[in-house]
Each structure stands twice: as C-alpha cells, then as structure tokens.
C-alpha cells in the first residue's frame, strides 16, 4: 500500500503553496466575474465571499493577516452597510466552519460588520467621482484592524474577569499591528482591482449606503 499523501513540507513551503493557491483562486474568480452581466450585485458579493473565505483559510498560518477586513470595508464603501453586514457574518461563519466555530464567531461577525458599517459611513471620503483614495482607505483599514481585534477581545469576558481585559488587549497589540500591516498591504495591492469589479456591479450609490441601513 502506498501513502501518496505522506509528504512533509516546511511551513514556508506550505505558505508559498497556500499563497499560490489563493492567487489561482483570485484569478479564477476574476475570470468568472468577466462573464457576469453588469449590476450582478449579489453574484459579485458571492465571489468576494469565496475569495475572502479562501484568503482567511489559506493565510491562516500567518497570524492575523487575511483579506476579510479590507473586503468588508470595500463592500461597505461600494454596496452599503446592510450588504457588508450580510457578507461579513457569512464570511465569519463559513471560514470558521473550517477553522473552528464557537462563541468567537459571533464576535468576529460583529467586528467585521462594524468594519463594513465604518466603510459605508466614510464611503464618500474613500470613493468619489470615480476615484478611490488609496491613502485614506489604507488609514481606515489600519484603524479597522485595531477596532476589529478589540471587539473580538471582548469575548474573553466570558472566561476572564473585566480587570484583565486591558492586559489582554495590551498583550495583543503586536497581533493588532500585524492585522493593520496586512490590511494596508491588501489595500495597496488589491483595492484598485476590487474597486473596479465592485463599481461595475454596484447599484447602491455610495452616499445612500449608510442611510439604507437606517431606513
């Protein structure tokens, strides 16, 4: 009997393999998007969800670096708060079905939904007159990284006393920094192509994006 899967590869090689796989998935999704008719809003959001889940799962070996935060912010900017919340919660649930589902899924869904709402709130400052302000988006995504991590940190109150929360949050700052740096890198490399895709399908003018949630 041969065990064809008994291959040991180093963590770096595994990471390179995962990054290649993510690039391949991204390319395939981009090709799939080209076959969509314009204004296929929910189909595009589904493709974004697939890419975000794949990114989170495949980049799991790198602590706190994943494309989800940037994708939900951009969804908030281009499609509004309600769609970004739907996407954020779905990504949290589906990716945690692979990475591990538990109480933290609720807080992650909450954190990413907050990032999406934040994107909708600042949409007119990030995207106006057909132009994406990369610098502002990079700053917003770095800020959102800290906000997301601190929202998820609240989940420790189920097991730790409240006075330990600041200690827990301070201990996590290096991981917050990683999240923020990862977000800025994703903004620098992916925000433009993702925005091109999203604007082709968005039916929600950015200025009405947040108002839509309130109505």
């Amino acid at each position, binding site marked *: 009997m041969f065990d064809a899967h008994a291959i040991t590869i180093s963590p770096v090689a595994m990471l390179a393999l995962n990054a290649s796989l993510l690039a391949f998935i991204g390319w395939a999704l981009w090709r799939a998007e080209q076959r969509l008719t314009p204004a296929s809003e929910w189909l595009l959001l589904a493709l974004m969800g697939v890419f975000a889940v794949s990114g989170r799962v495949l980049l799991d070996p*790198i602590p706190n*670096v994943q494309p989800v935060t940037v994708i939900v912010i951009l969804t908030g900017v281009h499609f509004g708060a309600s769609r970004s919340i739907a996407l954020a919660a779905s990504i949290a649930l589906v990716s945690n079905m692979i990475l591990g589902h538990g109480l933290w899924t609720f807080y992650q869904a909450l954190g990413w939904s907050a990032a999406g709402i934040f994107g909708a709130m600042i949409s007119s400052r990030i995207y106006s007159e057909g132009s994406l302000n990369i610098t502002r988006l*990079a700053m917003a995504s770095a800020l959102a990284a800290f906000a997301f991590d601190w929202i998820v940190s609240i989940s420790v109150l189920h097991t730790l006393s409240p006075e330990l929360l600041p*200690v827990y949050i*301070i201990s*996590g*700052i*290096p991981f917050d920094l990683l999240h923020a740096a*990862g977000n800025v890198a994703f*903004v620098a490399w992916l925000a433009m192509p993702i925005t091109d895709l999203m604007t082709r399908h968005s039916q929600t003018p950015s200025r009405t994006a947040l108002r839509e949630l309130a109505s």
Partner: protein
Amino acid sequence: MTSAENRLRVLSVFWLVFLLISAQSISIEFARISNLVLDDDDSHNGLPNDWDGMQVVCFNFPQGHAPEGYNDGRHHLDPSGVEKFFDPYWNETGLCVGGFEEFGNGLDLLQAAVSAGGHATVMEYTEYSGLGLMIDSFGGINPCEALACADDWSSGFSWTLYHNGLKSTIGVSALPLEGDSVVTWRIDSW
C-alpha cells in the same frame, strides 16, 4: 498608477515582512510589559503581576547547568505546578513557583514549592542537628558538580538562600515569612 501608490505597495510589504519576522519577540516583550511587575525596588520585580502581594520561591540555576526544560530563561509555575508564564529574557535561568499565601515558615513554603516544581526542584539536603538544613542539590544540580570547588574546600559554591532580595542570615527551617515574601535560591561562591 501613481508613484504614491507604488510607494505604498513597497512599504506595506516591507512592514508586513518586518512585523512577521519580529512578531514573536515583540509579542513576548508586550507580554512582559503587561504581565510582569517591573519595579527594581520591589522584591517581586520580574514576577507575574498577579503574584504581587503573594509568596514566591525561585530557583536560579547556573547557565548551562539547569534541569532539562529549564535552561532557556525563567519559567513561572502556579502552586499546582502548571506553567503560567515563560520569560526568555530574564537574566537568570530556572523557575519560580508562586501564588502561595499564609505560609509562616520558610521550610513549609519551600516544601510546597518543591512539590509543585516536579523534577526541576527535587531537593536533597543534609540535616545538621541544631544548625538546620544544608541544601545539597535542587533538581539534581549539585553546586560542586556543576561548578568547580577547590579540593581542599578552601573555596567553592553552595546553594544560598535570599529573602526579599537580601542574603538570609537565618536558615530556611527557621526563616519567618511575610505575606509577600520572595524566597530565592541561587548558587553563590564562598
């Protein structure tokens, strides 16, 4: 694409790689800052915050002569022997067992710490009537086997007791404790 966008691309990758490489050290340093008492004038300096005001026993082994698993910094164990924090940057090697309360006597506290420390704190001693205990080894580390003692005993090394940072003039079996005593054992020359 503007040059600012290109610059952001390069810088973002640079910072990400830098953070990934240094994440472990930064994370340990943050854990030290947030978890430890950092006050040179406090006998609990370098120990976990939640042991502040409690009794602690530390065993410091010479570099390269620590029991297996304790050669890489200072480990901190709770009274049940569970490791709660590891500090690879502390300038002494070994372990501390802490979180004790209400021990009145040094020997009682030492026996509780030895019991929690497992193989690293197995204690061998010689009892001299009227003089108390002389520690021969902790964790199998005998000072004259680990470090060179003179054949004629004109000089050598021994396990030495410190109480709240000061060398104790009283043996461990007669040592009265305070509620927040820090008892340290380290090998000193004589």
